[in-house]
């Protein structure tokens, strides 16, 4: 038997044991949801699946042992119908996807890899559009995960939660955070107020949290003329929505270590940067008072503030993957299922627990040990408290089962 086939057999039997030993909870109002599954042995996705009761749902998981499992964010009259018109859309929860795939992190340069399927050329970092060797555009990508990736996803998550709670008035009970089982988090909002939102309405919410289309004049930052004298007025710390957020973000920016390079990247002239750097404390104080004093610094006019504001807006926006939020028919990962590319559990986390949540520990399912042989160079990774690797190609190692599952699912090692 080929080694990959052997590995898949092991993965499937381990996944099978997981589904047998655990009573996987059904998602809220599951009989109105559409389910979708990917199997180990067949290409493509089984869609339009529906379950009328819990035991039927459990039986399906135990019998088919899916590689990946999904369910709709939408509620349907008839989830089984083969086309969208026939399903009878009743509404959908609001979903946000925060994925390290879409975030710029330094670690990717060290642990993501690509291989040209045409000539076999390979390299580290993001996949190039074209193979530098043979110019082919068919290039495989092997993405890795590390603490840095997942922490940067967590940073975006906290920013998003602040928008949901303070701006949108969503309560903690209405929000469910789900670790995706791979490089990110899904945020489900179960609220009457969002259920019937159109796709355009959802796009507007995405634009809101990502700061797309914010115009500082509309936040109140303008130059006015009083009795022939020009002055700058603007939002204060307590201004609702983006106004107050902008002030907080500028204050934070002026307290940060790399303010100089940030101001330079914002396209501000050298002599103006000097003024700003020499008066950091003064700016922080002037903007922290109510009413704030936007014209505290001689020589720093409205156009400079606008440049600073556009950086500050970027820093405090939450980067979410737009298509996931605006597609009201989309299938999302089934909570408590296993992710086929990692073997990690797609696990819901409460808002209170998220700070401490550690995917490399809390989403790990398997116990025991097995020996594997590496097919390729493997960067360092962590499961629980233990750090593994890096390993070289053809290296044979005995590892805990959870690590083995991760490596087999990632297709970077085989059973020896």
């Amino acid at each position, binding site marked *: 038997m080929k080694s990959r086939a052997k590995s898949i057999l092991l993965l499937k039997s381990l996944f099978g044991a997981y589904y047998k030993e655990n009573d996987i909870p059904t998602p809220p109002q599951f009989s109105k949801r559409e389910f979708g599954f990917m199997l180990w042995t067949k290409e493509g996705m089984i869609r339009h699946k529906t379950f009328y009761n819990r035991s039927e749902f459990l039986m399906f998981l135990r019998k088919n042992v899916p590689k990946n499992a999904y369910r709709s964010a939408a509620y349907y009259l008839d989830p089984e119908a083969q086309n969208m018109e026939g399903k009878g859309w009743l509404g959908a929860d609001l979903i946000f996807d925060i994925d390290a795939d879409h975030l710029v992190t330094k670690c990717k340069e060290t642990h993501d890899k690509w291989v040209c399927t045409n000539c076999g050329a390979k390299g580290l970092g993001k996949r190039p559009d074209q193979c530098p060797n043979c110019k082919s555009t068919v290039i495989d990508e092997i993405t890795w995960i590390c603490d840095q990736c997942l922490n940067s996803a967590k940073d975006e998550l906290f920013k998003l939660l602040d928008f949901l709670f*303070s*701006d*949108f*008035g*969503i309560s903690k009970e209405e929000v469910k955070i789900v670790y995706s089982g791979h490089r990110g988090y899904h945020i489900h909002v179960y609220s009457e*107020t*969002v259920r*019937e*939102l*159109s796709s*355009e*309405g959802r*796009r*507007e*919410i995405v*634009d*809101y949290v990502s*700061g*797309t*289309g*914010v*115009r500082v004049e*509309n*936040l*109140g*930052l*303008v130059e*006015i003329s009083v009795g022939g004298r020009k002055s700058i*007025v*603007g*939002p204060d710390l307590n*201004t*609702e*929505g*983006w*106004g107050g957020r902008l002030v907080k973000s500028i204050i934070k920016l002026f307290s940060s270590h790399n303010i100089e390079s940030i101001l330079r990247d914002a396209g501000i002239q050298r002599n103006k940067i000097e003024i700003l750097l020499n008066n950091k404390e003064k700016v922080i104080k002037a903007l922290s008072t109510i009413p704030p004093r936007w014209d505290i610094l001689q020589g720093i006019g409205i156009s400079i503030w606008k440049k600073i504001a556009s950086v500050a807006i970027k820093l405090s926006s939450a980067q979410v993957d737009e298509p996931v939020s605006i597609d009201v028919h989309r299938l999302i990962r089934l909570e408590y299922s296993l992710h086929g590319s990692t073997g990690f559990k797609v696990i819901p986390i409460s808002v209170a627990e998220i700070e401490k949540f550690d995917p490399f520990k809390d989403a790990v399912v398997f116990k025991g040990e097995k020996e594997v042989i590496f097919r390729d160079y493997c960067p360092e990774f962590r499961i629980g408290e233990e750090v593994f690797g890096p390993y070289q190609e053809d290296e044979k190692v005995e590892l805990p089962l959870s690590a083995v599952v991760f490596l087999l699912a990632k297709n970077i090692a085989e059973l020896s």
Partner: protein
Amino acid sequence: MLTKEDLAKYPSIEPAREYVRQFNIDIATLADEYPAIVNRARQILRDIIVKGVYTYVSNDFETEILAFPVVRLFIDAIGDDWLRRRFAVAFSKRVGQFLQKEENEKILEIARMPGNVSEHGWNLIYEIKRVGVKFYEWKLHFKDYLSTAVHFHDITWKMCNHPVSNGYVRLTKRELARLLAEAFKEKILEKRVPKRFIELPDKLMRILEDIEELIKKYKKEVIREIPIKAEITGGVYPPCIQYILERTERGENLSHVERLFLMFFMLDIGKAEEDVVNLFRKMPDFNEERTKYYVKHAKSKGYTAHNCDTLKTYGICRPTHKWCSEGTIKNPLVFYGRMSYILHKERRTKNEK
């Protein structure tokens, strides 16, 4: 409490419908029993067609209230999409003007009542708040705000450009009036009666034919049915312009920014001023003088089409072509230039063969 005058000003709201129901009017005898109302309805329709305005007669509230459903009856029976839109836009403009000057108590009552602007009514609160130089009087739940504001493709209507807190979006009095007027319009357009279901008695039928005649005349003289179809299907336009052109063709109302974008784009690619004006003839609120002025002004100032980034924030970008989705172009004019070149070359090689 809403008065009879209020119902005359806002005849589409639920209490006005209730008021009309009490009369137990029968379509079969309508023309004989209420000639004044039928006449008024006819006048309203003429004004809508010719001037694009829903007129108001302030000395006979009862007639104003009762004429509204008769106007709608005719519009449903005629089944002309252009007229339906022109009516909805004209009525919405009138509502907006009244609301600008309306007492807050009444605005609250109208907006919150189920069935007027939405099935459940709006979650609206009166609360004064000053932010910088701006003076907000209202806050509206984001759910109701988004249901309507997404129709305005203008950056000032993006939710991020309003104070938002605890689920509510702050609005000035002017903004709320504009938003409510739009919701009135959407409510009117949402109900659609298939033409064949309405059988009118002879007397009303004659009026209907009269109105149809007027529509025909207006369309011939003012809209002039300019053939832009062939170009629309030519595939030379970027998807954003394509989409706007298709809606223009159907006589759908374009937002202010969409109109400017279409205008600038067409001038940029070298269309004559008159041809650009002609594009707008099917707009439900078309006004020849004003459109000519805008086009002339844009041309003399040399305004140029918005960049893709700007269009994205306005919600106008429709990246269905791979040049757009892959982000290889920064301005729709580049799309047009590239595509014209390719199409031209294709045509030439075909001719050579």
